[in-house]
């Protein structure tokens, strides 16, 4: 009995110890995140854009679809903050609702490719035969420039928001899988993996218990880049008429509309452009910041 | 008096500025090297032995490093030279070889090119003559068929050969001082024996001074005449090699000597152990730096830092209680 009590007491004080340690570690981590200017700047901007997108109906006075033929191509004013387009629609509303499209597509592509890339990358790093097949297939997909491939897929499937997501997932998954794979190959060579094999650990335990947690930093960084690239490609597709179909607002097709009237309506190019640039820039900043935070070696390389 | 000493390092202090604040990697290091002599600098990793050598050559990142004290080479303070004057010394009068021969050669240049470069730089020879000299240097370091080797790339030769190439580069301009930073640590014992012999022969031939930085007390005993022992950035003992091994004064030196298994040691005894670990440079202990791990430490050691004292003509030690330790040693 005595020993059992001792064990209980011991494990009690130890879980206390564990709690204190984790609180301490979390505080340290938060301090490091806040000290990183890139993460803070990128994060704040992205957060702000997401807020705007989330509360789009609240902050806009006009519907993005409402046509006012009397109000065509009006310069920015107190009522129409970003001016109106060649159909008399309010640009501000369209840009804000466009943010919804960009963010939703960016986030869903990032999440889906993260899962697919993680699976493919981990397993092809672990099984060499699978690797040969999968990576040749990825090479094939990556031999096409990403926008070109996306255009080709969209041409087959037709312009629709869901199809944009599918096309982007097809285009970006091999990239993520490659990043995961090369990170996993490095981890696979570490002695602790060998130690686990020496213990007779199953492939499942090694892949998900030991390799996956260690490649997570590279995956997170890569995913922020996928997020920004997806927004760029979505905008490009919509600009080319192969993405979000009119009249749905998207930064890309507002810019396309603006192109034909660039002489008379600069606001149609500058405002959606600025939002697109800010969104992409801030997610790149975030990505670079996270990379520096998680990999102390790259600190030198980016300051 | 400076004319008698090839190198005189006085109170050298090297400070790095880091993210977590400044750290002093080398603190108050003093020693001399005479021509034709091998001075060993020993210590464990993090003791500042490599930083000392790189401070002499001023190879550390200029922006984040601050040097204090004096490094007198043939009477001239290297720390006060401008960059151009310093470059004329490096590779010419003072040369250095590094620990890792596998990564210390440029992978995209031929061996001949890398040796000839230093010759052209300092001796203003023509390209052709420089290559001839490079070939001679390779032959001198015992590389077979050097006329073929000079056209090869580093990845085509073995580790032992690469270390010979690095020695050839270092000795190409007949330096007066050679700094060898763990030159054999990455090599096998049979190759190590070859390289140590080579350095010794070339030292005799060229009458140069050598600083041999190592953690291996065996290497020290075989090639050095005098030894400096470092611990956490400080010189804690300096002595002739015979005396260091027969009568070590500092408790750390004694512990180190007793903790290595010896080829003729008593196997039935447990190895001596120095308890604890070397503290980080960010948390240098107050008082004597070795005190937290020292079995002789008392109040005095924990509160006040000892200085490097002359014990006799050949021995210096940084310890409050060396006399007591000496007497105990003599009595038993």
């Amino acid at each position: 009995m005595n020993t059992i009590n001792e064990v209980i007491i011991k494990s009690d004080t130890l879980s206390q110890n564990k709690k204190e340690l984790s609180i301490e570690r979390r505080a340290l981590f938060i301090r490091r995140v806040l000290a990183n200017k890139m993460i803070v700047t990128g994060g704040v901007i992205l957060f702000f854009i997401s807020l705007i997108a989330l509360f789009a109906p609240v902050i806009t006075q006009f519907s993005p679809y409402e046509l006012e033929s009397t109000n065509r191509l009006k310069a920015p004013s107190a009522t129409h903050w970003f001016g109106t387009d060649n159909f008399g629609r309010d640009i501000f509303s369209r840009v804000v609702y466009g943010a919804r499209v960009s963010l939703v597509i960016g986030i869903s592509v990032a999440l889906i490719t993260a899962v697919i890339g993680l699976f493919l990358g981990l397993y092809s790093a672990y099984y060499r035969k699978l690797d040969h097949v999968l990576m040749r297939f990825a090479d094939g997909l990556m031999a096409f420039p990403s926008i070109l491939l996306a255009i080709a897929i969209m041409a087959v499937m037709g312009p629709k928001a869901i199809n944009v997501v599918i096309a982007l997932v097809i285009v970006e998954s091999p990239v993520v899988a490659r990043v995961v794979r090369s990170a996993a190959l490095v981890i696979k060579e570490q002695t602790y993996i060998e130690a686990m094999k020496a213990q007779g650990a199953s492939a499942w335990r090694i892949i998900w218990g030991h390799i996956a947690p260690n490649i997570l930093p590279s995956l997170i960084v890569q995913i922020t880049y996928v997020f920004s690239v997806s927004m760029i490609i979505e905008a490009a597709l919509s600009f080319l008429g192969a993405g979000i179909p009119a009249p749905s607002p998207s930064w890309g097709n507002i810019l396309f509309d603006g192109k034909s009237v660039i002489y008379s309506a600069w606001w149609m190019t500058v405002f959606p452009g600025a939002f697109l640039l800010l969104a992409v820039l801030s997610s790149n900043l975030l990505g670079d910041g996270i990379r520096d935070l998680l990999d102390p070696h790259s600190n030198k390389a980016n300051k | 008096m400076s004319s008698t000493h090839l190198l005189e390092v006085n109170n050298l202090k090297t400070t790095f500025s880091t993210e977590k604040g400044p750290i002093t990697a080398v603190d108050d290091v003093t020693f001399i090297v005479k021509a034709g002599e091998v001075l060993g600098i020993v210590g464990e990793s993090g003791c500042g032995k490599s930083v000392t050598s790189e401070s002499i050559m001023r190879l550390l990142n200029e922006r984040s490093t601050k040097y204090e004290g004096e490094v007198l080479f043939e009477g001239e303070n290297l720390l006060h030279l401008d960059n151009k004057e310093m470059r004329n010394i490096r590779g010419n009068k003072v040369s250095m070889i590094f620990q890792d021969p596998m990564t210390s050669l440029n992978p995209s240049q031929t061996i001949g090119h890398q040796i000839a470069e230093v010759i052209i730089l300092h001796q203003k020879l023509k390209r052709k003559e420089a290559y001839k000299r490079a070939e001679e240097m390779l032959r001198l370091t015992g590389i077979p068929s050097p006329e073929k080797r000079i056209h090869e790339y580093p990845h085509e030769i073995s580790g032992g050969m690469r270390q010979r190439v690095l020695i050839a580069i270092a000795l190409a301009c007949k330096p007066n001082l050679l700094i060898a930073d763990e030159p054999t640590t990455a090599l096998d014992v049979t190759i190590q024996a070859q390289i140590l012999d080579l350095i010794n022969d070339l030292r005799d031939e060229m009458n140069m001074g050598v600083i041999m930085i190592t953690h291996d007390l065996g290497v020290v005993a075989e090639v050095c005449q005098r030894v400096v022992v470092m611990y956490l950035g400080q010189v804690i003992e300096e002595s002739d090699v015979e005396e260091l091994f027969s009568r070590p004064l500092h408790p750390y030196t004694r512990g180190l000597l007793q903790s290595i298994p010896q080829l003729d040691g008593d196997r039935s005894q447990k190895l001596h152990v120095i308890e604890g670990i070397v503290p980080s440079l960010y948390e240098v202990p107050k008082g004597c730096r070795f005190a937290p791990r020292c079995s002789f430490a008392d109040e005095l050691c924990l509160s006040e830092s000892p200085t490097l004292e002359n014990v006799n003509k050949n021995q210096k030690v940084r310890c409050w209680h060396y006399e007591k330790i000496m007497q105990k040693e003599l009595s038993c």
Partner: protein
Amino acid sequence: MVFALLGISVPSFLLGLLLMLLFSVNLGWLPVAGYKPLSAGLLIHLKFLLLPAITLGAIQAALIARMTRSSMLDILSMNYIKTAHAKGVKERTVVYKHALRNAFIPILTVMGQTFGTLIAGAIVVEVVFNIPGIGQLIINSVSRRDYAVIQGTVLLIAVSYVFVNLIVDLLYGVIDPRIRLNRK
């Protein structure tokens, strides 16, 4: 490096539109869009190509600048750079003769990969500036659902991409003696 980060963040068609707004609409220095062949005169030909070229090139330049910087910083921390310094080699010589060549290997890889980005960018930029090139052809055939033309052009681009990467692979051997095959 703020420039480089901005460079990789701006989509090529947006950069094209903004340059157009600045140099053509506001300053009136260059034609807004369109294309004139060489037969119309070299100067005119170049005038029409200048903005599209800058648009495409700026982003590549930013990418390569970023890569060069990080690769150089990697190489400059290598042991053999320390050896070169210990030889008394000048800082300039260390950077240009010892470091740059070794740093060039990853840069070359990026150059090969960005060729693809360049072609993809060309598609978009051609649409922005109304240049009747292969990009316009693809876009038009997409809207007309002309699959044969899409297949052909996409294949052409993919083949040229593979070809460029083959040349990059061959160049590795020139730069890096370690991957030169069968020297002996």
